[in-house]
C-alpha cells in the first residue's frame, strides 16, 4: 500500500489526504459538504449523477469530484457561482422526470433528493412537458412493482444512480438486480422476471437516495419523522451489527436501519437483522404473568406470580435440596441479563445447574471450554478479515450463519485477492465471488483435519527452524501416524490428493485465517476438532501472533456473552472457574453470599436428571427448549415430568404452553444493555420502545424474584449491573458503560497471553450408514431465520414461508423429484411431510432440513442418542 500523502487546497483550506483518494473524499474528510447521489464510500465511483461537480483551477470544465483523484497542489473550489449554478441545473434535470409524489412516497422525510433540492435546487422548474411514467399496471394509479417479497420498486422515482445494483453486485456478489433499457427508459429490475431476493436486499432500500426502492415492512406504515430512533445492536447472529431501531409511540418497534460501524458492518445489514428482528410488536407476545390452572392459564398480577414461583422454589429446595432445581437461559439475552440470571440461580436458588445451550446433542465440558478460551486468544477483529490472503472456513455455511462476516470475505476477494477455502458438509455459495469447496461427508470433519495435519507433517510444510523439533514434537508427530489415509478418506470422503491440495494451500499461504463454525466445535467431535484446529494454526504458524489467526464463530447474538458471564455450570461470571479460589472469593464478597459447592449439570445432564426425577423445577429464561432440543419426544417427556416449570418468555411458545408459570420477558428493543459479538466486542444497545403495559423489563423481574428468594439484588438499571459485573474481570474493569461509544470494545477476558502448544488428537468419526435410512440429515438455520424466533416475523415468513428439504440435483434425479414436490421424510423417530428444494449446496447423498419452522419441527425426526440422524425419503 502506498501511504504517501498529497496536499491540496479545497475552498482555501489546506487538506492532506492519502494519494489515491478522490476530491470528494478529501473534502468530506475535512467536513466540506459536497452533495452527491451515486457515490457511496463502499462502492467504486461511477460519476453518474453529476451532482458532485466542483471547479478545479486549470481545468477547463467542472469535474466530478467523486471520480477525480486528488493531485499535489490542486486548488478546488466547491462553492463558486459556476458550481452552484451547475448543481441547480443538475437538480433541475433530475427533477424533470421525478414525480412529485412525496405525499405518498415512503421515503418522504428521509429522501436525499428532497434534502438536496431544498439546499441546492431551483425554486421553480421550467419543465412543462409530460413526465415519463413507468406504468406497471394500467388499472393502478400507483406504479409500484414488487421486485421480490420484501422490496417494492417505483421506477418513476428512480434517478438511476445505480447504487442498488452496485451494492448488490459489488459488495454482496449477487446479480439478481440489474439495469435494463437505456436513456429515459433505463430501469431497475430483477433479471428475467425473477424475484429480487437475497439476504442483503434491504440495503438497496436504505441506500436508495430516493423512494424508488421501498421496503415492504415500512410500506405506508408511518412517517419517519414521527419515529424515535435508538441506537441498538442486532441480536440475530454473532456478528453484532449496529442498527438504529425506529419505533413509534403507538405502533412500537417498526423497522431497523443501519448504524455505520466501520469495525463490524460498514453500514450494511442483512435481511435477517434488518427485517427479521422486528418481532417486538407481534400479537403473540405474552402481556402479563400467567399461572396454569388445569388446562388453561390465568392471568395474574406480577407479585402473585413471583410469590408463587418463590414458594415453589423454596418448597422444592426444602424437600430435595437446591440441586433439584435448574435454569436454562437463551443465548439471545444481554450480558447483564446473563449475569443476573447466573447470580439468581447461583445465589438465589443456590444451584450450579445452569446452562444456555439448548439445541445440541453434545456440549463442551469445562475442559473443552478452557481450550476454547485459550484458542480465542488467536482471534482477529472482523475488520482485518479482508486483509488476509487465505481464509479457511470450516464447519459452517458461513453465508447463512454470518452474512456480514461473509461480506468482509467478499470484500477481501474483490479488493485484495483473498482466497477462500471452505470445508463443510454442505457447499458454500458466495454468488459471483469464488470459493473453493472441499465438501466432506457429515461426521468426517475430524478426519479431514487430521488428514491435513498428516500431510503437513509428511511433506514438511512447517518451518523447520521454529519450535517444531525435538522429542516432544516428534512424539506429537508420531501420534498422527495412528490413523492412515484410508481411514481418513473413508470417513471424510475426500481423497488424499484433495486433502493434500488443501493442506498445501493452507501451509503455503502467507497469512491464513481459520474460521471455525459453531457446528464444528459444538458438534459431536467438538473438543477434538478444537484441538486439531489449534494444532493446524500452531503448526502453520498462523496463530495470530504476528500473522494468521483463528476465529471461532458464535452463531447467535450473545452466545459469547452468555459464556463469559456465567451461564455454564462450571464457569462463574467473567470466566472464573468454579474451583478457582481467587475468583470464587471475589464473587462471594461481591455478592455477599456463599456460592454452591456442588458440581452443576449442563442442559443434557439436567434433562437426564429430570428424567430420573432428581430435578423437579426448571427455570427456562427465553429458551424454547421444546422446539430447539434435538429430540422432540425426549424433551417433551422430560418437561412434562417437572413439578415446577417457569417459562420467562417473549412469546407463547410450545414450551410456554407446558409451563406452570409464565412470565413475560422483554426483547432487545425494550430494554437496554450490552451484547458480546463473535469477536468478543462488547456493544451497548439502548431502549427503543416501551414494553407493553404491564410488562416489566426482564432485569427487573429477575431482581425482584431474587429478592423474594432472599438475595439482596438492588439494581436501579442495567448500567448498574454492568458496572458491577465488569469489576469481576481485570480485563473488563476499565470499561465505562457510558463510554462504550459507537464502536464498542473488544474484551478478551483473558488473563494470560497465548502460548502456542500442540495437542495430541484421537481419531474419531461418526459416519455410519443404515440401509433403512440412507440419507444423513443435516439441520441448521436458514439465512432468513433464527431458530423459531423469526416465526414471529411477517417479513421472514413471507420470504421463507415453509420448510423445504434441500437435496442435491443428483439425488433429485435418482428419486425422480422435482422442485416443490411434497415428500415424506422419515426417520426412526417420526415423519414429516415437506416440500423439496433442489439445491446445489447439498452434496449428493446428504439432505438438509431447516430447523426454523414450528409446524414442521425437524427435531421430531431427531434422536439425541445418535450423533447423526438418518432419514429416508419417499414421494408423498
Amino acid at each position, binding site marked *: 500500500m502506498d501511504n504517501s500523502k498529497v496536499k491540496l487546497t479545497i475552498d482555501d483550506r489546506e487538506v492532506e489526504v492519502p494519494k489515491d483518494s478522490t476530491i470528494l473524499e478529501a473534502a468530506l474528510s475535512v467536513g466540506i459538504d459536497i452533495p452527491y447521489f451515486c457515490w457511496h464510500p463502499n462502492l467504486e465511483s461511477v460519476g453518474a449523477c453529476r451532482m458532485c461537480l466542483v471547479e478545479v483551477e486549470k481545468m477547463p470544465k467542472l469535474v466530478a469530484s467523486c471520480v477525480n483523484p486528488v493531485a499535489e497542489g490542486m486548488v478546488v473550489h466547491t462553492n463558486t457561482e459556476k458550481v452552484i449554478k451547475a448543481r441547480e441545473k443538475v437538480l433541475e434535470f433530475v427533477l424533470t422526470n421525478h414525480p412529485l409524489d412525496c405525499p405518498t412516497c415512503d421515503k418522504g422525510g428521509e429522501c436525499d433528493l428532497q434534502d438536496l433540492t431544498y439546499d441546492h435546487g431551483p425554486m421553480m422548474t421550467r419543465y412543462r412537458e409530460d413526465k415519463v*411514467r413507468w406504468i406497471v399496471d394500467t388499472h393502478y*394509479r400507483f406504479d409500484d412493482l414488487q421486485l421480490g417479497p420484501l422490496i417494492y420498486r417505483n421506477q418513476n422515482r428512480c434517478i438511476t444512480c445505480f447504487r442498488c445494483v452496485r451494492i448488490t453486485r459489488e459488495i454482496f456478489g449477487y446479480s439478481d438486480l440489474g439495469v435494463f433499457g437505456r436513456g429515459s427508459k433505463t430501469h431497475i429490475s430483477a433479471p428475467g422476471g425473477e424475484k429480487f431476493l437475497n439476504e442483503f436486499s434491504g440495503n438497496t432500500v436504505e441506500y436508495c437516495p430516493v423512494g424508488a426502492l421501498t421496503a415492504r415492512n415500512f410500506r405506508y406504515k408511518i412517517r419517519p419523522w414521527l419515529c424515535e430512533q435508538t441506537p441498538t445492536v442486532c441480536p440475530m447472529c454473532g456478528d453484532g451489527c449496529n442498527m438504529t431501531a425506529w419505533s413509534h409511540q403507538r405502533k412500537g418497534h417498526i423497522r431497523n436501519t443501519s448504524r455505520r460501524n466501520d469495525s463490524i458492518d460498514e453500514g450494511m445489514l442483512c435481511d435477517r437483522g434488518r427485517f427479521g428482528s422486528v418481532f417486538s410488536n407481534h400479537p403473540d407476545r405474552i402481556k402479563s404473568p400467567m399461572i396454569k390452572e388445569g388446562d388453561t392459564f390465568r392471568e395474574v398480577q406480577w407479585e402473585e406470580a413471583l410469590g408463587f414461583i418463590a414458594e415453589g422454589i423454596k418448597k422444592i429446595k426444602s424437600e430435595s435440596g437446591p440441586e433439584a432445581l435448574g435454569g436454562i437461559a437463551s443465548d439471545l439475552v444481554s450480558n447483564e441479563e446473563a449475569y443476573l440470571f447466573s447470580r439468581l440461580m447461583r445465589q438465589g436458588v443456590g444451584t450450579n445447574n445452569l446452562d444456555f445451550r439448548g439445541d445440541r446433542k453434545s456440549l463442551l465440558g469445562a475442559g473443552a471450554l478452557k481450550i476454547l478460551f485459550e484458542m480465542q486468544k488467536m482471534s482477529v477483529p472482523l475488520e482485518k478479515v479482508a486483509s488476509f490472503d487465505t481464509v479457511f472456513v470450516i464447519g459452517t455455511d458461513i453465508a447463512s450463519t454470518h452474512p456480514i462476516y461473509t461480506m468482509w470475505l467478499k470484500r477481501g476477494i474483490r479488493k485484495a485477492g483473498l482466497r477462500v477455502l471452505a470445508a463443510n458438509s454442505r457447499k458454500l455459495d458466495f454468488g459471483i465471488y469464488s470459493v473453493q469447496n472441499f465438501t466432506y461427508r457429515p461426521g468426517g470433519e475430524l478426519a479431514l483435519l487430521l488428514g491435513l495435519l498428516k500431510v503437513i507433517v509428511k511433506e514438511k510444510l512447517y518451518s523447520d527452524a521454529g519450535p517444531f523439533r525435538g522429542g516432544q514434537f516428534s512424539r506429537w508427530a508420531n501420534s498422527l501416524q495412528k490413523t492412515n489415509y484410508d481411514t481418513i478418506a473413508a470417513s471424510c470422503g475426500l481423497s488424499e490428493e484433495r486433502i493434500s491440495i488443501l493442506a498445501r494451500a493452507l501451509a503455503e499461504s502467507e497469512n491464513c485465517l481459520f474460521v471455525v463454525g459453531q457446528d464444528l466445535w459444538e458438534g459431536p467431535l467438538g473438543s477434538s476438532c478444537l484441538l486439531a484446529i489449534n494444532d493446524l494454526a500452531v503448526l502453520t504458524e498462523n496463530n495470530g501472533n504476528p500473522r494468521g489467526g483463528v476465529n471461532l464463530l458464535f452463531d447467535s447474538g450473545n452466545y459469547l456473552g452468555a459464556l463469559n458471564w456465567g451461564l455454564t455450570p462450571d464457569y462463574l461470571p467473567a470466566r472464573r472457574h468454579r474451583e478457582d479460589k481467587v475468583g470464587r472469593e471475589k464473587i462471594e464478597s461481591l455478592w455477599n453470599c456463599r456460592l454452591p459447592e456442588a458440581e452443576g449439570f449442563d442442559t443434557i445432564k439436567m434433562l437426564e436428571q429430570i428424567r430420573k426425577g432428581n430435578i423437579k423445577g426448571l427455570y427456562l429464561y427465553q429458551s424454547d427448549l421444546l422446539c430447539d432440543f434435538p429430540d422432540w419426544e425426549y424433551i417433551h417427556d422430560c418437561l412434562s415430568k417437572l413439578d415446577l416449570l417457569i417459562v420467562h418468555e417473549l412469546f407463547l411458545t410450545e414450551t410456554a404452553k407446558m409451563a406452570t408459570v409464565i412470565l413475560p420477558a422483554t426483547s432487545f428493543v425494550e430494554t437496554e444493555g450490552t451484547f458480546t459479538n463473535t469477536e468478543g466486542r462488547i456493544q451497548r444497545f439502548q431502549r427503543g420502545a416501551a414494553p407493553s403495559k404491564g410488562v416489566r423489563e426482564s432485569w427487573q423481574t429477575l431482581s425482584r424474584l431474587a429478592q423474594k428468594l432472599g438475595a439482596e439484588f438492588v439494581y436501579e438499571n442495567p448500567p448498574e449491573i454492568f458496572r458491577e459485573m465488569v469489576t469481576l474481570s481485570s480485563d473488563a474493569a476499565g470499561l465505562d458503560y457510558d463510554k462504550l461509544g459507537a464502536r464498542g470494545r473488544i474484551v478478551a477476558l483473558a488473563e494470560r497471553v497465548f502460548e502456542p502448544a500442540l495437542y495430541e488428537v484421537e481419531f474419531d468419526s461418526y459416519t455410519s450408514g443404515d440401509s433403512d435410512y440412507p440419507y444423513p440429515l443435516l439441520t441448521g438455520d436458514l439465512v432468513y431465520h433464527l431458530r423459531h424466533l423469526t416465526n414471529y416475523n411477517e417479513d421472514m415468513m413471507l420470504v421463507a414461508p415453509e420448510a423445504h428439504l434441500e437435496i442435491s440435483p443428483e439425488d433429485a434425479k435418482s428419486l425422480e423429484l422435482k422442485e416443490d414436490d411434497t415428500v415424506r421424510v422419515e426417520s426412526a423417530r417420526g415423519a414429516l411431510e415437506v416440500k423439496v428444494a433442489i439445491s446445489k449446496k447439498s452434496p449428493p447423498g446428504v439432505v438438509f432440513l431447516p430447523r426454523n419452522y414450528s409446524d414442521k419441527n425437524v427435531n421430531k425426526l431427531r434422536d439425541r442418542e445418535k450423533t447423526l440422524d438418518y432419514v429416508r425419503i419417499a414421494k408423498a
Partner: protein
Amino acid sequence: MADLIRILASIFLAIPKGLATTFKHLFRKTITIDYPRKPAKFAPRYRGLHYLTRYPDGEERCVACGLCAIACPSDCIYLEPEENERGERVAKLYEIDEIRCIFCGYCEEACPEEAIRLGWEFEFSQYDRKNFVWTKEMLLENFDKLEKGRAKGFIREKKFQFRAEPETYF
C-alpha cells in the same frame, strides 16, 4: 347657586340625549341574530369543524401523507396510512381531537391533496371528552352532509377549487 343649576341642567339634558341614541337605533337594521332559533351566518372563510373531501367519483382524497399532522401546532391530528386493494396509499386512521384543535387552518394549508378542510360547523358540543375525537368516517360524513347541503343550495360555495382529475397528481 349657578353651579347647582348647571349641574341639574346637565343631568336633565343627558337623559334625552342618551335616549335619542337609543331611539335612533330602533330604526336601524339589527346586527344580532336570534340564535339558536334562526341559523347563524358565517363569513365564507370561517374555520369550523373539519371534513375530509372526496373525489367526484366518491373516492376519498386523503393519501395519509402526514403533512397535516406535522403542520398542526396543537398536535391534534393522528393518522395511519394503509394500502388499499389497488395498491394505493389511503388513510387507515384519521383522528382529529377537536377539543385540542385551535382551528388555525394550517392543516388545510399543508394538505397537498386538498383533502382536509375546515368547514362551517361549530355546533359539536359533547358530554364526554372522548367523543371529541373525530374519526375518518365521521370526517367524511361531514363532507357528505356538506355536499347534500350544497346540492340543495343551502350552503354557499367556499372559494376554492378542486383539481379536476385524479391523475394529475404528478
